């Protein structure tokens, strides 16, 4: 009995080892992991349905067009098991970054036929320790055994074998262009000639005479010396260049060896048994179709200007503070029965949790809701405490720099102390509370002026002003502010200085200061500053409430979350299609607008975690959100192909 049990246990273990999850193969130095769950996806949509779609045909054509064989028409042609998980990960090892894509194989014969055709040669294909290795280049390989495959590529990021083109350039040009000897030669020659002339007793007064007589000879001698010197420099340059080339080649070879050895080590590791240093992923949901994890999302670098000078503001200038303001990101995409949704979380360090709790403790001023019309096209709201934001940022920064050993930590710490004395957080929080809301009210035809030319009977031209109707968005920005006194003073000052004019109970920005092709209005009421180009919205502000009330669903969404966004895509498409001058690419909306519904997004701070949700409900009558999405993509592809 024991023997049978042991055999069963061993068999089970062997089976477990062989069908180990691929995610466990990624190391703890991973910074990103993306998972596509074929099993979940194909629960929602049939494999055949995907294979018959235009999307599949397009992707198959684009990805495999260089293969000297017919494009695959079915997943099974690839020999890949699409009902399993696919993983893409980035690992940041020392001096090298790996980009890895791995998946399970369903049919080894088909798989090998597919990957080898047109790509495998005697030089680039080898079998090492039972692993098939197809090398596309020195830093890019496809490796497989009977069960799963790994596509791995890498980038060397170390310094030892890097080649600096910058240093090379300046070294090169240094010897090439420098030419200061010639002046000395001229001077020397000139002196000699003068002395000679005088000794022969033919010395004439004035340097002018000497130069006149000896100039040609001087020039000749100068040119000869110049030529010899240039030849010498050319030789020197060639030797330097040869030396540089040799160094470059040596470094390149060493770098290649480094990459090859490290990649092989990583590959062996990947295909071996248990991984003792595997990355711990806790936030991937089993029924998600796509899951993403990203380590240490740098919250300070979440701006689009993350390069150059602006990049320094996010990382260099903060001397590592950016790492303080970071968290792990998890996102899961679901194809549910009645909606497509993306749920994500960012987990913060303990130091940040308490601070963020204070910053996100506020709720949007309920007065905002009074001025939102129920037939709005879309909106986006956010609410946080400005006062706490400044206070907590000072506290965190201070704490960080007091314990940091960066070069200028002490100076920055002192600077922060001084600034905290000067800055009145409460007053700033009063002026700008941290509540804000953007509304897309409508699209409407507005009369717009433009300049053109007219010709008289003799074709003399004059500039004329004409008008035309143009479909433009009507929008409103609302910003919370409790300091009525300052706002009122600023308005009065702006009127005095002719920046604003008064109309009814609101202000109009003067044309000279208005870059928009429509009038912009300003108003302040109920602790809210309004900026809008919609006269209807200003009428709502004047009346103190909207005629069409906002639904309770929207009110709840806005009140209960740090941020809330909504877009009525169907209505938006109808409005955009009203434009006679509509961009041709947008004409695809004619074909899909009836299938469009709304889009919702919310964020809330819950127990130290920022939880976000994006939801796109599907129309009634649709049986599956995956099929719905695929059909829409196919409609767009068909439209693009036709036009």
């Amino acid at each position: 009995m024991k023997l049978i049990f042991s055999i069963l246990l061993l068999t089970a273990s062997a089976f477990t080892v062989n069908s180990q999850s691929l995610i466990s193969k990624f190391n703890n130095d991973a910074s990103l992991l993306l998972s596509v769950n074929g099993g979940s996806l194909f629960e929602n949509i049939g494999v055949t349905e995907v294979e018959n779609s235009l999307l599949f045909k397009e992707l198959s054509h684009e990805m495999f067009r260089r293969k000297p064989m017919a494009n695959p028409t079915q997943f099974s042609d690839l020999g890949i098991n699409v009902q399993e998980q696919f993983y893409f990960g980035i690992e940041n090892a020392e001096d090298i970054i790996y980009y890895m894509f791995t998946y399970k194989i369903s049919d080894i014969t088909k798989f090998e036929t597919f990957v080898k055709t047109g790509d495998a040669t005697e030089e680039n294909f080898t079998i090492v320790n039972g692993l098939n290795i197809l090398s596309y280049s020195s830093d890019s390989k496809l490796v497989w055994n009977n069960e799963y495959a790994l596509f791995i590529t890498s980038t060397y990021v170390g310094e030892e074998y890097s080649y600096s083109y910058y240093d090379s350039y300046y070294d090169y040009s240094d010897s090439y262009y420098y030419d200061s000897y010639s002046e000395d030669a001229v001077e020397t020659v000139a002196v000699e000639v003068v002395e000679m002339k005088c000794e022969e007793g033919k010395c004439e007064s004035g340097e002018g005479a000497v130069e006149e007589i000896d100039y040609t000879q001087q020039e000749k001698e100068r040119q000869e010396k110049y030529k010899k010197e240039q030849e010498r420099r050319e030789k020197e340059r060639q030797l330097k260049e040869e030396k540089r080339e040799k160094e470059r080649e040596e470094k390149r070879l060493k770098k290649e060896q480094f990459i090859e050895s490290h990649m092989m080590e990583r590959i062996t590791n990947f295909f071996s048994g248990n991984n003792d240093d595997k990355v711990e992923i806790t936030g991937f949901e089993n029924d998600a179709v796509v899951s993403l994890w990203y380590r240490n999302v740098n919250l300070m670098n979440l701006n689009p200007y993350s390069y150059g000078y602006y990049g320094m503001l996010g990382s260099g200038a903060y001397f590592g503070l950016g790492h303080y303001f970071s968290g792990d990101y998890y996102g899961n995409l679901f194809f549910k029965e009645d909606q497509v949704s993306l749920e994500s979380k960012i987990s913060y360090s303990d130091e940040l949790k308490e601070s963020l709790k204070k910053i996100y403790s506020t709720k949007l001023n309920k007065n905002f809701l009074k001025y939102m019309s129920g037939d709005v096209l879309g909106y986006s709201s956010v609410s946080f405490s400005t006062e706490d934001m400044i206070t907590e940022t000072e506290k965190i920064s201070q704490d960080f720099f007091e314990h940091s050993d960066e070069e200028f930590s002490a100076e920055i710490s002192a600077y922060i102390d001084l600034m905290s004395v000067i800055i009145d957080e409460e007053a700033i929080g009063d002026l700008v509370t941290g509540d804000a809301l953007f509304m897309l009210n409508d699209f409407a035809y507005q009369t717009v002026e433009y300049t053109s030319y007219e010709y008289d009977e003799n074709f003399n031209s004059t500039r004329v002003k004409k008008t035309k109707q143009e479909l433009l968005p009507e929008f409103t920005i609302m910003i919370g502010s409790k300091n009525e006194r300052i706002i009122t003073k600023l308005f009065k000052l702006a009127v005095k200085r002719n920046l604003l004019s008064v109309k009814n109970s609101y202000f109009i920005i003067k044309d000279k200061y208005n870059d928009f092709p429509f009038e912009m209005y300003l108003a302040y009421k109920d602790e809210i500053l309004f900026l809008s180009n919609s006269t209807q919205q200003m009428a709502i502000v004047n009346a103190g409430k909207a005629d069409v009330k906002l639904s309770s669903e929207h009110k709840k969404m806005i009140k209960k979350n740090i941020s809330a966004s909504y877009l009525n895509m169907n209505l938006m498409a109808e409005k955009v299609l009203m434009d006679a001058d509509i961009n041709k690419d947008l004409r695809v909306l004619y074909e899909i607008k009836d299938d469009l519904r709304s889009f919702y997004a919310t964020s809330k701070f819950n127990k130290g975690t920022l939880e976000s949700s994006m939801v796109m409900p599907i129309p009634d009558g649709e049986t599956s959100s995956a099929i719905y999405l695929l059909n829409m993509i196919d409609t767009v592809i068909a439209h693009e192909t036709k036009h």
Partner: protein
Amino acid sequence: MKYSTYIFLVLIAFFQVSCFEVIEEVKIHQDGSGTFKYTVNFSQSAAKIKSLLLMDEVEGYKVPTEHKMVSEFHDICNLTKSIEGISNVTRLTDFENYIFIYGCDFKKVENLNTIIDSLSKKTESVDYLKTDYFSYSKETKIFRRVGDDIFKEAYDKLSESKKAIFTGAQYTSVYRFESEVDRVSEENAIVSVNKKAVLHKLELVLLAKKGSAINKQIYLK
């Protein structure tokens, strides 16, 4: 016209521009000298341009900043200043209405061809054919305007949505003389009441597809 490629490049960035006009004005004196004025007017699309200029990139094309546009225009003007026969170069950049005007005086109208060739040399990486876009003979009193298909190549490469930029756009050419006009070879060109000017309006789409649509000979009395 080769220097239209400059306008073309700007247009690509402004791909949503729905309407604009280009005006070419040439005035020729009895002795063959004259003045030239080239106007590009985006005023009808000012609203869309303003919103586009807020972006860094549109459909893979980098949106030029106002500063960049001024700088490029300035470079073009400076380049033309050194051309023999060209003087009194002027330029106007109106970012309120998005109107750009280039003007100059010439000793003979063929100097304008040198402008175009100089600009082409600066920008074109392939060999180009020197073309006499403008010519005037004092003896025969014939003014010739000729177009070519250099714009066509770039236009044909555009996607349908980008070709739509040119829908509704107009190209107007006005030629003024001190003598009266006897006749014009182009039937769609109109002679003024005082018979000293000729106006010809074209759809820019037509000109983009076929440069010779602008061809004409004007016979003076």
